[in-house]
């Protein structure tokens, strides 16, 4: 009882610390930006848009990492699903079906990853490293190494459109976060994912079908990456086979900054969203200040380390 109270206090302190860093960052960038343009309504919407692709990937990555695994293949899935969706849309196909194609592509790779880990006993790091490489190769083969351009207006609207002045990408992002957070905290499945990552042996003893459950987070990560790939193709109006290179690292960074334990079993969607926002805010704010992108990488790296440091220091159970 006291232990769980301690833990929730620790978790609260961590959330608060993370939120505090975020707020300080926002205030600093606002004060530093010319005419305080950083905090304008347009720029806030822009930050949401710029967070969305990585944020969607991070939601999938969150499930995988809480389940005690890792998925390095999501960036390559973004490339392949973007090419697949764009090729379909190029022939005049409906954008909705293009999205479904992208999601199916992602689910396929996710299934391969999950089955390989759960039933093939291959470490997640290894099999997803394999699919990271293979899927990128497939994207280049399918597209002939060239970006797929010449996409219709409908396809562009998918990500670039607005509803009541709010960019669609931001809306998708918010909906996906809401669903991902709800499923993780409020459903039996979500609790089982925590149990699986926290202590797989105990999970098995308590009657959970561990192998089958292990596959699901990979499906979620793959499917969301497939969705993100088509959305990115729509946003850039090109299905580029090289899109999404190293995106898995930004997704992992968002998850880690958000306080999810790399050992599995702990973490919340709130933190991950903050993590993803923080990455976007750094890039956006420093671009506005005219600081070059090499320095931005330095700052991002420092924040990742700082976030994990806070995680370690606030964990006292």
């Amino acid at each position, binding site marked *: 009882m006291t232990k769980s109270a301690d833990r929730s206090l620790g978790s609260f302190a961590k959330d608060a610390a993370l939120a505090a860093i975020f707020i300080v960052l926002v205030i600093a960038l606002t004060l530093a*930006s*010319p*005419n305080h*343009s*950083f905090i*304008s309504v*347009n*720029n806030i919407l*822009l930050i949401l*848009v*710029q967070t969305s692709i990585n944020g969607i990937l991070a939601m999938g990555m969150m499930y995988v990492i809480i389940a005690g695994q890792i998925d390095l293949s999501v960036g390559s899935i973004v490339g392949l699903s973007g090419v697949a969706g764009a090729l379909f849309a190029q022939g005049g196909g409906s954008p909705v079906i293009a999205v479904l194609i992208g999601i199916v592509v992602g689910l396929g790779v996710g299934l391969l990853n999950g089955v390989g880990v759960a039933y093939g006993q291959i470490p997640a790091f290894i099999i997803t490293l394999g699919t990271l490489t293979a899927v990128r190769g497939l994207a*280049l083969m399918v597209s*002939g*190494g*060239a*970006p797929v*351009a*010449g996409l219709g207006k409908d396809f562009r609207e998918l990500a*670039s459109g607005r509803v009541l002045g709010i*960019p669609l990408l931001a809306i998708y992002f918010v909906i996906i976060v809401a669903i991902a957070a709800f499923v993780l905290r409020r459903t039996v499945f979500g609790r089982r994912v925590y149990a699986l990552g926290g202590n797989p042996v105990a999970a098995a003893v308590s009657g959970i079908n561990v192998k089958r459950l292990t596959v699901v987070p990979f499906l979620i990560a793959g499917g969301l990456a497939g969705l993100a790939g088509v959305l*990115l193709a729509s*946003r*850039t*109006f*090109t299905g*580029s*086979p*090289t*899109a999404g290179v190293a995106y898995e690292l930004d997704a992992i960074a968002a998850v880690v900054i958000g306080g999810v334990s790399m050992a599995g079993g702990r973490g919340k969607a709130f933190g991950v969203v903050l993590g993803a926002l923080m990455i976007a805010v750094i*890039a*956006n704010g420093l*671009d*506005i200040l*005219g600081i*070059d*992108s*090499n320095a931005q990488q330095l700052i991002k790296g420092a924040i990742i380390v700082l976030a994990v440091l806070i995680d370690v220091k606030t964990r006292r159970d």
Partner: protein
Amino acid sequence: MKKRLTLALTATVAAGLLLTACAGTPAETGAPSTPANENTTAETTAPEAGGKIAVMMSHMTNEFVTTVAEAAKAKGAELGYEVVVFDGKQDASTQVTQIEQAVTQGFKGILVEPVSTDGVVPGLIAANDAGVPIATLVQRASEQDLAATYIGGDEVNAAKLQMTEAIKAIGGSGNIGIIYGPMGSDAMLSRQKGYQEVLAENPNVKVAFEDTANWVTAEGLQLVENWLSTGTELKGIVSQNDGMAVGAVQAIENAGQKGKIMVFGIDATADGIAAIKDGGMQGTVSQDTPGIGRLGVETMDKIIRGETVPPEVLTTAQWITAENVDTVGK
């Protein structure tokens, strides 16, 4: 039996090597000069066309490189060569290994698009040592005189053409943003040099923003979104390739400023051409991409047949706008 077969094979390979060694002396003397070629013709009796030519691309992941490679293959087939394309995977040591292998596998000539201007030098030396003619494509090597010749565009000139036309289009004055390729990469540096030369003559044009988007469309998009967020008035955006320029076009459209800010690219790739037809992009530079592949194989054919070639074979840069976009040759 097996031993004899091996012996026979070895003999054939050795003979092949000897032949290629004799056939390809031009680079051996270091300079791509006439005497070397004359020696070749004197030693071997009228070398013939045919055989294998290696085309070593730095990578095979965008339209530019695939177009060069395809054009080279087509030209090879026309001239009676088998053109084999190698993918250097953006790794200098992989590329050198590929050159070393090609040298031992009876290739009659090698065209290489260096992954790195310095990193390719060991490969040039290996080919020269074996007497296989090697020429650089798209980009020069740091020790270019080790290569038989250079075939490609003139990056500095292409960039000057782009910046000159861009400044003309925006009316000769105002703020611009520049999107660079990967900082410190050779194409980025030479295109930047071209920009600087033109900007020095146009003091009324101010560079309000400049940063890299690593040749990537999504990065170009985000960068320009953030620039526009500052409210700084921009008249034009000059991008070091079409892919990033297309990203800029998207950002401008999303901000509802289509037509107010002009966008200019280089390379004339399909995405850039589409954006020009669509009205989002105002101009790009064609450096005759398929021409680089074609000229490469044509030039190598001449070297193999012992003809003299100039130290540089350059394609012409052409300014492409909505007016002449339909005439861009394939």
